[in-house]
């Protein structure tokens, strides 16, 4: 055919991660290449968020060792690299779980992230779907070596629907990218610096913007929570179902977190990596109307039970009988016991591992757990 356009075959880069070789498009980051492989070789990511431009590079949990830079220049990179911000080169060899250096550095990062964390999971709305909790279980130690008073902040309202609990914040900056990229007038950002830096709204200006609620979804910890859901329930009590409605502002595709027929909370739908799901390559952010105002089942067309395949505390039984702390740090906690590193099933009767939520017909109700709650 004469008019056939001669197209260059797309050249893919070969990259080997923990001895598994795959081909990815040039420009792919090491983290995203690892996500394509999936499973254990995928580094944990606490600050990177594929749908937020410029995110990543900060938390340092995703550090990997580059054992060979590329086919052309196979020298190893001297420093560990943030996989979320390092693009693959053809012939690159990456070590993640096969590198002792990485494991050592990551354990350090996890310790740093937990250093000033209040470990108040028992009263935190995020518990059960918290990435820091997962990270602690996967990479943390049984106790802390920190013996000083932890940093605390006053709680703050970020607009009428969002509660900021700065003490829990890990300064991943994701919410500031949401404010920058999703909302039109940004009034929220980071004040001060170092370990005294904090997320805040400038001069306590409220955020009232149609998409501000997405900050809650991107926050990896319980620093930004939904005030309309606050203390209403533990996530593992609720039954997530996919639902949609016709919305003129957003995609209208959500997850409802129900208890019986009651809609306790509405969130965007999440993918395997805990990020907001994309539809036709567009992130499925949801608007505040869908999130905060539509709290009746009749507002929604129910599609079916959400399959939570995220590697997480909420995917029950995963941490059954895992870690029990050796030492107590009650003095540090002002008399309270740390709960994070305990077996969640010991702490909470209601989350009985013998009850498999996904086998229950319909949403879980308090009756499901009756035997346990005497």
């Amino acid at each position, binding site marked *: 055919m004469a008019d056939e356009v001669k197209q260059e075959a797309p050249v893919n880069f070969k990259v080997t991660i923990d001895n598994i070789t795959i081909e990815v498009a040039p420009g792919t980051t090491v983290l995203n290449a690892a996500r394509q492989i999936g499973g254990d070789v995928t580094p944990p990511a606490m600050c990177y968020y594929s749908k937020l431009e410029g995110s*990543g*590079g*900060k*938390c*340092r*949990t995703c*550090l990997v060792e580059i054992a060979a830079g590329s086919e052309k220049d196979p020298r190893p990179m*001297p*420093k*560990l690299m*943030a996989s979320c*911000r390092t693009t693959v080169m053809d012939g690159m060899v990456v070590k993640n779980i096969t590198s002792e250096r990485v494991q*050592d*550095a990551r354990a*350090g*990062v996890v*310790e*740093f*992230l937990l*250093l*000033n964390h209040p470990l108040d999971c028992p009263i935190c709305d995020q518990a059960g779907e918290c990435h820091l909790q997962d990270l602690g279980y996967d990479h943390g130690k049984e106790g802390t*070596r*920190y013996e*000083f008073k932890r940093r605390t902040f006053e709680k703050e309202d970020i607009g009428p629907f969002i509660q900021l609990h700065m003490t829990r914040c*890990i*300064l991943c*900056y994701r919410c500031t990218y949401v404010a920058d990229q999703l909302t039109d007038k940004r009034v929220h*950002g*980071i004040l*001060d*610096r*170092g*370990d*005294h*830096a904090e997320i805040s709204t400038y001069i306590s200006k409220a955020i009232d913007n149609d998409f501000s609620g997405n900050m809650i979804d991107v926050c990896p910890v319980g620093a930004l929570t939904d005030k309309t859901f606050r203390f209403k329930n533990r996530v593992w009590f609720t039954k997530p179902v996919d639902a949609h409605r016709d919305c003129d502002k957003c995609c209208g595709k959500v997850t409802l977190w129900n208890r019986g027929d009651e809609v306790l909370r509405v969130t965007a739908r999440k993918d395997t990596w805990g990020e907001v799901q994309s539809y036709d390559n567009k992130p499925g952010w949801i608007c505040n109307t869908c999130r905060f105002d539509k709290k009746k089942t009749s507002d929604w067309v129910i599609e079916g039970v959400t399959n939570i395949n995220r590697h997480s505390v909420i995917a029950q039984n995963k941490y059954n009988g895992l870690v029990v702390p050796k030492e107590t740090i009650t003095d540090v906690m002002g008399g309270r016991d740390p709960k994070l590193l305990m077996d969640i099933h010991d702490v909470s009767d209601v989350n009985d591992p013998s009850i498999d939520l996904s086998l229950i017909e319909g949403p879980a109700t308090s009756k499901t757990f009756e035997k346990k709650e005497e």
Partner: protein
Amino acid sequence: MGRKLLLDKAHIENIRLYDVYRREGGYRSVEKALKTMTPDAVTEEVKKSGLRGRGGAGFPTGMKWSFLAKPEGVPRYLVVNADESEPGTFKDRYLMEFIPHLLIEGMITSSFALGASRSYIYIRGEYAWIVDILEQAIQEAKNNGFLGKNILGTGYDLEIYVQRGAGAYICGEETALLESLEGKRGNPRIKPPFPAVKGLWGCPTVVNNVETIAAVVPIINEGGDEYAKIGVGKSTGTKLISACGNIKQQGVYEIDMTISVEEFIYSDEYCGGIANGRQLKACIPGGSSVPILPANLLLKTAKGEPRMMNYESLADGGFATGSMMGSGGFIVLDDTQCVVKHTYTLARFYRHESCGQCSPCREGTGWMEKILLKIDSGKGSMSDIDLLWDIQRKIEGNTICPLGDAAAWPVAAAIRHFRDEFEWHINNPEDCLRKNYGLAGYADELKIPVLDA
């Protein structure tokens, strides 16, 4: 007496003013470069000179310039780093205060080489009065046809702007500086891309230290080869050293990098010896971020050779027994100084100055500060020393910018060389509040206290 290239005229009366500066031979390099050389030829001279960045890292300046991307139709920028906030470093201040036209002259010649038509001086906020000095110098240069449109009738245009920082050490890190210059929060950027490709407002940018740019003047006047003859090895030209601490004569000295550390401390031409009849205990030879050395390792390398005031010799032995030239902030401690307290003071500084973007630096700096305070106040335990070592090890190399390393190194070096002083604090919780560990064996000829903790 060593040769002086930067400060030789600094004390001529009114050299701060254009007329005097010009009469003393000022702005010759601009005339030579713009009228008789191509931009590439200027860069070539700088390469030949072997000049290394004077801001701390010592990266070859000519090479840095040749990395600058030159896409069509995209402006390029030269940004002078005058943030000078490293404790112990005050050489740029001296240069800008006494002989501001040298910096302006260097900037014009360098901007011409880089093809920049707008250049910036980013100056630390506390140097408020120097802003006026620089702006006056810029105005004078403009009035005399060395700045503005069509400089010296050659068709080359250049404007120089001075921007004041707001008092953050981190804004001296080149990418944080660029963010701040753009009006944003001064957080270091994640590299790559490097400023040479995407710098100020996304355009190719060179960031250089004040002293680096000033050194371009003698390089162009005398030629790169001549400049390279001064000094030794890869330490060419002259270096400004700001000396402070327990010495008789604190101040800024221009050295030609051929003298020994011993001569620099004890000769009357430079520091004039240790003040008040005390003895040398330790020294941080290159600004607060570089490893501290005990007297014995400072004056002699581990091989027993005299240590010289240049890049190679100061770094001889790596971090195990050596240190770094850094920014030339030479901090001397006598036998009344406590290394534990000193390390605590530095840790407090780094904790306060961390931008807080990355977790190891944000959390680790505060943790180290708290442990050091605990040891200094006689409440430490032996395991704290190992814990400190482990924390610094987990910060170093794992952060976005070198501030993390800069916070880790002083702690590591203090433990490496002064572990017995830390242990003394722990074993003598009462005494350490009233007495001093003193000189101990730190100046002993034979003792080389290297501990690979």
